[in-house]
């Protein structure tokens, strides 16, 4: 339902791209103008995105703000943008972090500025596109598009082994992507052959139950069509998450990426994987999901423990945080595959939390790296005396990452543990071990860098944070507190979507489909007018009639929307 | 009348000799000649088939004429190329013409 009668999702997606065009017209020398332009466009995007939670209808699992036009009719590809509770906060996180990254690169990046910001803006377009796309084809396109700017951000503005890391990042994720593409094609053609209509619309595709009877056995494990498709998706998403055996690109990419790149990578890009699981694997392939729960659980627990243990022995701050991401994303996966309400809710909120806190941690490291051009933990010590503001913010973020009550991390981890506990004591026990270890390496990191005597003379004259730098961290800190103290606005908006996903996974009757196809829906809205305008904004028409099912449960937003 | 198989066997032998020559000769002109042999083996087949097939429309013979033409054009171009090659390399031994590796 497009509550705004306006293609706001497309606007959000392509606004940064417009920024790229403007940047291209600016002269290379006017660095100030370039920075301001980039900031202006990301900020504008953030402002636009604020409308979304405001108008979001949390009483339904339906797709909202839908834009749908036919794009490649002969393949059944549609330009289908939509948003629901799962993506809502991820989108907000994206626009939010984009602004932060532009600000944080303000002074730390001075080389080839124009290209840098152009790639940043393109990256934002790609990320938003991934979250909005409700058509597999479109999804895949944005999925791959996103890689290119990230590749360049690492490869050009990275440190030390940037070429190696950039290519490794690109190849790993692309490899996962193409395998996922095969899964997409398999589903597409199966659906086409079964129903006669070829479509990439994921909700159309979800209507069909894919065969789950084993077709062959490999190493004693039976595999069905669904399992194979699931595995194809799994490979694509697991590399992105990254799940345990596929995580090796992450430390390299994080370590060598510029600060902003790391922030985006940790904050948003990793979420693409978990988002993919929750969007596609769970609801579309429920039997296979059930089938593979043990595997995911084992891998997640390995990731949690292994990630945390590896953190303990890191000497490089960024690498440490990178490995902590592996551990944290293991939590997210664990919660998700508990396949109960708390677990999935927790995993969604934990995605946001991880985005905020790990993003902030990378900022923190970036700030000190700008000053000292080293990230070795042993180079630092006793900074709290020299840089009190810095160390304070660091502490808050660190606690958030550890999951201290009152901060956002607690909410996510708690929900995940509850979810895991409901399924198995053992899993929960392992997860708790992970939390303990997490606290250990975080505190250890903080202690070694902030406390103690200020021994290294190079650190003696380090300036504390300036206003700009504070302004990058403070909003994150605010958000951390907000989620930690009053999480219900966040949780309530995801509730319906989570319920829907779980209903699908457990094969319960679904009260309401998130998006009815044109053919099955009563023709109350204006009909589609075809594709003559090439998918441009002008052709994007509202195609759904206002829902009338949950009339009594509407909140203020709903009332406003009905004007 | 001579049986068709005679022609076919002769053609196969010719083709085999040509192929052998094309693969083992080191002299560019020698290879070109071996190629001609292969073309002629094909021509022999065409003409023989055309003669022996029932209700033949002479397509085989026409084809053979065109093959001859094309082979001639190819030989002309081939010789020109070999000439140019000789000017550049002072040799037409294909083993020595290896600026670029496979």
């Amino acid at each position, binding site marked *: 339902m497009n509550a705004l009668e306006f293609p706001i999702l497309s606007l959000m997606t392509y606004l940064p791209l417009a920024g790229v065009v403007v940047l291209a017209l600016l002269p290379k020398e006017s660095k100030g103008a370039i920075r301001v332009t980039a900031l202006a466009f990301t900020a504008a995007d953030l402002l636009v995105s604020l409308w979304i939670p405001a108008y979001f209808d949390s009483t339904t699992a339906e797709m909202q703000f839908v834009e749908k036009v036919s794009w490649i009719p002969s393949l059944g590809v549609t330009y289908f943008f939509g948003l629901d509770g799962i993506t809502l906060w991820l989108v907000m996180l994206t626009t939010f972090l984009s602004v932060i990254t532009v600000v944080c690169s303000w002074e730390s990046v001075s080389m080839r500025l124009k290209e840098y910001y152009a790639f940043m803006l393109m990256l934002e377009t790609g990320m938003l596109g991934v979250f909005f796309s409700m058509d597999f084809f479109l999804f895949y396109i944005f999925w791959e598009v996103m890689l290119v700017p990230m590749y360049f951000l690492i490869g050009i503005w990275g440190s030390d082994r940037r070429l190696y890391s950039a290519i490794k990042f690109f190849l790993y994720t692309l490899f996962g992507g193409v395998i996922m593409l095969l899964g997409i094609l398999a589903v597409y053609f199966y659906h086409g052959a079964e129903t006669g209509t070829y479509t990439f619309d994921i909700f159309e595709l979800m209507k069909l139950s894919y065969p789950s009877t084993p077709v062959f056995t490999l190493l004693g494990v039976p595999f069905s069509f669904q399992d194979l498709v699931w595995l194809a998706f799994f490979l694509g998403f697991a590399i992105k998450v990254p799940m345990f055996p596929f995580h090796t690109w992450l430390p390299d990419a994080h370590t060598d990426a510029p600060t902003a790149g790391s922030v985006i990578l940790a904050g948003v890009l990793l979420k693409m994987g978990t988002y993919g699981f929750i969007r596609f694997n769970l609801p579309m392939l429920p039997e296979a999901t059930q089938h593979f729960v043990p595997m995911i659980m084992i891998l997640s627990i390995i990731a949690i423990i292994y990630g945390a243990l590896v953190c303990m022995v890191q000497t490089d701050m960024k690498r440490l945080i990178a490995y902590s991401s592996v551990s944290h994303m293991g939590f997210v996966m664990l919660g998700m595959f508990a396949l109960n309400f708390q677990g999935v809710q927790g995993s969604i909120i934990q995605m946001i939390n991880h985005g905020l806190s790990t993003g902030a941690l990378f900022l923190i490291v970036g700030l000190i790296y700008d000053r000292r051009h080293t990230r070795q933990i042993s180079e630092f010590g006793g900074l709290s005396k020299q840089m009190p503001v810095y160390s304070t913010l660091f502490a808050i973020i660190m606690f958030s990452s550890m999951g201290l009550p009152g901060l956002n991390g607690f909410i996510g981890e708690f929900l995940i543990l509850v979810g895991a506990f409901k399924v198995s004591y053992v899993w929960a026990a392992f997860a708790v071990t992970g939390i303990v270890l997490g606290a250990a390496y975080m505190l250890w990191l903080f202690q070694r860098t902030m406390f103690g005597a200020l021994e290294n003379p190079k650190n003696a004259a380090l300036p504390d944070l300036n206003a700009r730098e504070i302004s990058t961290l403070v909003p994150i800190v605010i958000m951390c507190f907000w989620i930690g103290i009053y999480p219900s606005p966040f949780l309530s908006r995801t509730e319906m979507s989570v319920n829907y996903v779980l209903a699908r996974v457990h094969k319960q009757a679904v009260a309401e489909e998130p998006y009815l196809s044109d053919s099955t829906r009563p023709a109350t809205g204006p009909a589609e007018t075809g594709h003559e305008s090439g998918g441009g904004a002008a052709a994007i028409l509202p195609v759904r009639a206002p829902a009338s099912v949950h009339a009594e449960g509407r909140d203020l937003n709903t009332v406003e929307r009905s004007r | 009348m001579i049986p068709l198989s005679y022609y076919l066997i002769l053609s196969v032998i010719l083709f085999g000799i040509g192929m052998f020559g094309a693969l083992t000769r080191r002299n560019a002109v020698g290879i070109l000649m071996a190629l001609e042999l292969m073309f002629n083996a094909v021509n022999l087949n065409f003409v023989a088939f055309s003669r022996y097939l029932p209700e033949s429309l002479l397509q085989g013979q026409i084809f053979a*004429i065109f093959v*001859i*033409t094309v082979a*001639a*054009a190819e*030989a*002309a171009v081939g*010789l*020109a190329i070999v*000439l140019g090659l000789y000017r550049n390399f002072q040799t037409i031994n294909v083993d020595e013409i290896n600026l670029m590796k496979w």
Partner: protein
Amino acid sequence: MAADYAIVGIFLIVGLLFVVVNVDVVSRLLRPTNPEPEKLTTYECGEDPVGASWIRVHVRYYLYALVYVIFAVETIYLLPWAVVFRKLGMFAFVEMMLFIAILLVGFAYAWRKGALEWV
């Protein structure tokens, strides 16, 4: 049919035999044979021959050969056409003239590019 051509073979064989009989039988019996090195040297107007005779040949010969190849092949189209020409009439005539015209473009090209110059 086969006999028509068999006689060609007979002619060729008879021609070969004639040479063989004359050169290697009759003449051999009659002629003297006393070779000596001087006699066996190749003739270069009385001088001692310089170098091998398998010299590098001027490129013009190749050029003529290349042009010839094209025209020689063209005749295999001309001859059958000429035979049935009267049955086919105007169309065949125009068609062949087109063919010749295309050929002549190539001919003019060769002419103009100097392939027909004996330099």
